């Protein structure tokens, strides 16, 4: 029985059309923006590296909608999606990828370090595992000062095998910190199947008990599932009931980074996952719940428009002034290591 023909299901719906539209909007915008990033790379307008989240949009959207203003995101180099999901304008994100003055950090950080304190994006970290303890520290600050924000930390399946993961999880639990650890299990490290180098089938889920946490493994391609799980974990953290570790099953449609054609994938794997494309799933979901088709279409149109505008803004943006080279090494804005 399809939900479409069941008005009762949608009456009892815990999510509702407004949030669903928001979840959809974020997924569409992230998708369009990431595709544009890929195009710009092919046009040689993105000079550094870049790591796309194509196929993983439901996770960023689900958490992005569940998080409140003031909550803090800690991302990896694969952080475009999470940055957009917190409300950072497309041109600030794309501009940073293009290393232009308009970029979030005016080109100083690059695609792997997207940060917007204003939006609660407390940094993107490019050394595997480093940001899990850092997210603990942010959560510790909230706990100590009695502030009510929650810190959410995103990372990949491969990250569960590095030491800092272990230290952070134990730390968060013993101090009962308001932090949510989100493992985006897209099956791969860079080019190596994570299952080949991991002792357990669920890289995060099967580790949860080592910290006294429940095993939570969810469908990371279904934004509703992600959203509900995120809401529960964030509420738990906000109520002082401590951290969660959530493993989201997903798949990246593109290669690991700009240069990677993804040849290590077995034939058919990508195709199977394309069937489970989060956008496809979600558009269907909206229809099942009779969400207004016109609004859905408007989101799609508006997203494309936004990407165009952002692209033009970025292309028109100059490089940052050269004075930035030695700015902000120290907190006084300068770089003086001597008198």
């Amino acid at each position: 029985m399809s939900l479409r023909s069941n008005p009762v299901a949608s009456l009892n719906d815990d999510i509702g059309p407004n949030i669903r539209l928001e979840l959809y909007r974020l997924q569409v915008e992230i998708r369009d923006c990431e595709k544009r990033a890929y195009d710009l790379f092919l046009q040689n307008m993105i000079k550094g590296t870049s790591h796309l989240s194509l196929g993983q949009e439901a996770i960023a959207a689900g958490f992005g909608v569940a998080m409140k203003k003031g909550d803090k995101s800690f991302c990896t180099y694969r952080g475009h999606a999470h940055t957009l999901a917190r409300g950072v304008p497309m041109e600030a994100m794309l501009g940073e990828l293009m290393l232009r003055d308009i970029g979030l950090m005016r080109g100083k950080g690059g695609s792997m370090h997207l940060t917007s304190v204003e939006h609660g994006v407390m940094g993107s970290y490019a050394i595997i595992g480093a940001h899990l303890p850092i997210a603990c520290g942010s959560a510790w600050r909230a706990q100590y000062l009695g502030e009510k924000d929650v810190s959410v930390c995103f990372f990949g399946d491969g990250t569960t095998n590095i030491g800092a993961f272990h230290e952070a999880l134990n730390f968060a639990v013993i101090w009962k910190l308001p932090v949510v650890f989100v493992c985006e299990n897209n099956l791969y490290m860079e080019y190596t199947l994570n299952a080949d180098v991991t002792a357990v089938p669920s890289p995060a889920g099967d580790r949860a008990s080592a910290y006294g946490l429940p095993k939570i493994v969810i469908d990371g391609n279904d934004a509703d599932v992600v959203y509900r799980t995120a809401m529960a974990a964030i509420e738990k953290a906000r109520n002082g009931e401590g951290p969660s570790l959530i493993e989201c099953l997903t798949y990246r449609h593109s290669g690991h980074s700009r240069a990677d054609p993804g040849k290590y994938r077995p034939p058919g794997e990508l195709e199977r996952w394309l069937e489970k494309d989060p956008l496809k799933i979600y558009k269907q979901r909206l229809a099942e719940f009779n969400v207004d088709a016109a609004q859905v279409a408007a989101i799609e149109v508006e997203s494309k428009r936004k990407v165009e505008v952002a692209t033009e803004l970025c292309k028109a943006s100059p490089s940052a002034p050269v004075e930035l080279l030695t700015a902000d090494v120290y907190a006084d804005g300068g770089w003086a290591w001597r008198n």
Partner: protein
Amino acid sequence: MAELSYRDAVIRGISQEMRRDKNVVFLGEDIGAAGGVFKATVGLFEEFGPLRVRDTPISEQAILGAAMGAAMTGLRPIAEIMFSDFIAVCFDYIANEMPKIAYMTNGQVKCPLVIRTGNGAGVRFGAQHSQSVENWTMMIPGLKVVAPSSPVDVIGLMAAAIRDNNPVIFHEHKALYATKGEVPDGEIIDTLGTAKILRAGTDCTILALALMVPRALEAAEILAREHGINAEVVDVRSLVPLDTQTILGSVAKTGRLFTVEENPRLLGWGAEIASIVADEGFWDLDGPIVRITTPHIPLPAADHLEDLALPNAARIVDKIRRVMNG
């Protein structure tokens, strides 16, 4: 004015700042209820309670990562890394995270924190618990690095480090904890980036740091008394920022430069200073710049070998005398 040990100066410096600012918090292994393995944090747990003085598991990466995350979002943490050798197990935070976050985020994020650590040799702890690792931290852009030699400097530089808005590495010398010195009453605040001329002299400049400072001073007395060489002794104190003016000024006056370094030879702090003086102070120099260091070896545990490894007054005197007369 009272006599205080270097160890108690650490306690006084930290408590002075924790009383002043509730955002100063302190974490590390065995620092709380137990008062620290060097007893340099005794009483803090009792005064400030378990929420401000927190014992941690043996998880140095979590300690520094947590300190950083807290610093980025509003606190001013002090983190203890028990022995400075252990910096190696959490070096990512020191080399790649803390010092780069302000720059990478175009100044959006600041990272005001202090890492204090027991540095140096002289207590027969062997190769993995005795190193002088100031250079591990000095070489990283974005850090500040201090290494006090006296109780009063410990308090003042600790206060300055805690109030600084950058990550500051605070090297306490294990072999100095029991030493004593006069300390004024009341609040003490010093300035990072300032060297101190501890003994004025005319014939040569001796730069020293931490445990090497008393040895350099002792050597200078012997040089004056027995060899007619009047050495100026400068306590470098702060490696970053570096007080190049005081150093270059002293060399301009004396024409000769010696460094006394506890670290193994290659890329000890003296190498950087030698390279600065060999450039900017070249025309002031009347002879070679000579570095007196521990040989480039891991440290032995045996007392007689460890004593032989580190520069001491006799070796300093001998070297300077021979160089100056040769």
